[in-house]
């Protein structure tokens, strides 16, 4: 498997001298789904601006598929990495949705026919067919968010970076967007890197998690990260509700092999656990149950 993103010892300070990134090291394989978590102001957006070369690293320490992003030509670097920022109004700067989605491909120097094909394909991917002539101020927040994603998909990047894709979306739009991102990853082989605080969407969007707090504090599978409650607390994070619930269930004797991270996983784990106990799981309260429950709750409480 190829390495899609390789960042070694990346440092960045704001013009006023504040350190935004401190010795950041990240290695992401092609086709992986990565979530980057961390408190507000941890440097996630700054890191993303390095990933597509908008901010150029001083040394050649950001490599995309082995090539230094800083020395790539504009058309090439936007072909490799597409960044969808958090606020859709910042990304839909043209007068119509069509022009916004055509903006990247036109800058890549593609022919008008190819641009047209890509615009239509990107709109179909996010489920916004027929929105070509819409103006952004007539669209809902969810539609704008999808249009902003389409405006990046039209460049057909190999790596898709998304900053808070599910923030402020209604549950239906959120589910739609998660489905689109997963489809892109699974069926089109696009490597996805997502920054988000939406912990309940984590299991669907992450193979691995990086915890960023100016430097990389931790890295690993989601379950390992959230099992470390000290790490979670220190970095202003929280574990998914279902994960905490099964930790509590364990105090009552409801033990599963692995603590589930999502509803789907919980069904699987619970079924396996009950089947192993010959179809019956008994829950009970003993002397130390309440103490154990309190310990679990307080370990994740801020």
């Amino acid at each position: 498997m190829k390495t899609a993103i390789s960042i070694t010892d990346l440092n960045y300070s704001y013009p006023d001298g504040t350190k935004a990134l401190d010795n950041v090291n990240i290695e992401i394989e092609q086709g992986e789904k990565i979530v980057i978590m961390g408190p507000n102001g941890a440097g996630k957006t700054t890191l993303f601006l390095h990933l597509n070369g908008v901010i150029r690293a001083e040394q050649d320490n950001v490599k995309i598929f082995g090539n230094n992003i800083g020395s790539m030509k504009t058309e090439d670097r936007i072909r490799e990495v597409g960044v969808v920022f958090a606020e859709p109004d910042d990304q839909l700067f043209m007068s119509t949705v069509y022009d916004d989605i055509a903006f990247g491909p036109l800058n890549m120097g593609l022919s008008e026919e190819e641009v047209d094909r890509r615009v239509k394909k990107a709109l179909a991917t996010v489920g916004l067919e027929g929105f070509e002539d819409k103006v952004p101020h007539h669209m809902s927040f969810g539609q704008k968010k999808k249009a902003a994603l389409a405006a990046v998909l039209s460049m057909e990047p190999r790596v898709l970076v998304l900053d808070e894709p599910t923030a402020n979306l209604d549950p239906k739009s959120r589910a739609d967007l998660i489905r689109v991102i997963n489809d892109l990853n699974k069926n089109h082989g696009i490597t996805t890197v997502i920054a988000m605080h939406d912990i309940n969407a984590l299991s669907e969007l992450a193979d691995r998690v990086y915890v960023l707090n100016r430097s990389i504090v931790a890295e690993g599978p989601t379950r390992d990260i959230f099992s470390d409650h000290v790490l979670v607390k220190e970095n202003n994070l929280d574990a998914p509700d279902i994960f905490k619930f099964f930790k509590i269930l364990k105090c009552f004797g409801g033990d599963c092999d692995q603590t589930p991270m999502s509803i789907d996983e919980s069904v699987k784990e619970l079924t396996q656990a009950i089947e192993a106990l010959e179809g019956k799981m008994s829950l009970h309260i003993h002397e130390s149950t309440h103490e154990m429950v309190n310990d679990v709750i307080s370990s994740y409480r801020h």
Partner: protein
Amino acid sequence: MKYPEIDKYAELDSLIHRFDPRAKIITFTLLIFSFVFIEDIRIAFVSLLFSFFILLVSRIPFGFIFNRMKPGLIFVMPFLIVMPFALDGNVLYSYNGISISYDGLYYGSLVVIRAATSIMLTLIMLGTTKMDTTMKSLHSLKVPSPFVQTLMFSYRYIFVFIDEFLSMWTSMKAKGFKVKANKHSLSIIGNIVGMILVRSYERAERVYHSMASKGYTGESRTIVKFKMQTADYGLAAILIGTVLIFIIYGMSLS
């Protein structure tokens, strides 16, 4: 939310709506320039009637155009009020040393009629074409790119700023703020305007990042698909002919 959309009725169907947007910009600009230099008030009045006729043909509701003409007319109205008193010439009426001159009234009215005509034509020109098409037409007419881009981004972000302003305003009202004619209200409104400036500066930076992420290097690239039809040439010829008639008739009078 009521947005100040200039192209609200651009989807209607009329002779003016169907007119090629590039030819429309050129002919309407010629009309406006020839009308604002008219010296004779009778010809100026005919030009106003002609603009009104174009408005009728365009089928845009009168109320929509007249509402948008108001700010411009309020701006030129002082000419009509001040000039009759300020300009020397044939005295129409005099009272206690204050006199109203015929020449002042004549030129004041001329300024207002010229302004009304040009504002009406501009609004018809912009109101019968979608804003993005107008921008693309300017682009294809080789209007300098920084100018077109500035216009385009201004138009796009007016609506975002209105939303931002209204959300701030709502939150202030939710905290009991009422506008009064005092220093406190003025300073609060000043703060809001300052806040919008700061926010727009920050937004500009984020928009730039997003543009750079899509390969923007300062050049505006866009797909333009316009094609002049016979009807467009015909209408352009009629409008340019009108311009010439007004100029020649104006010259014959002077």
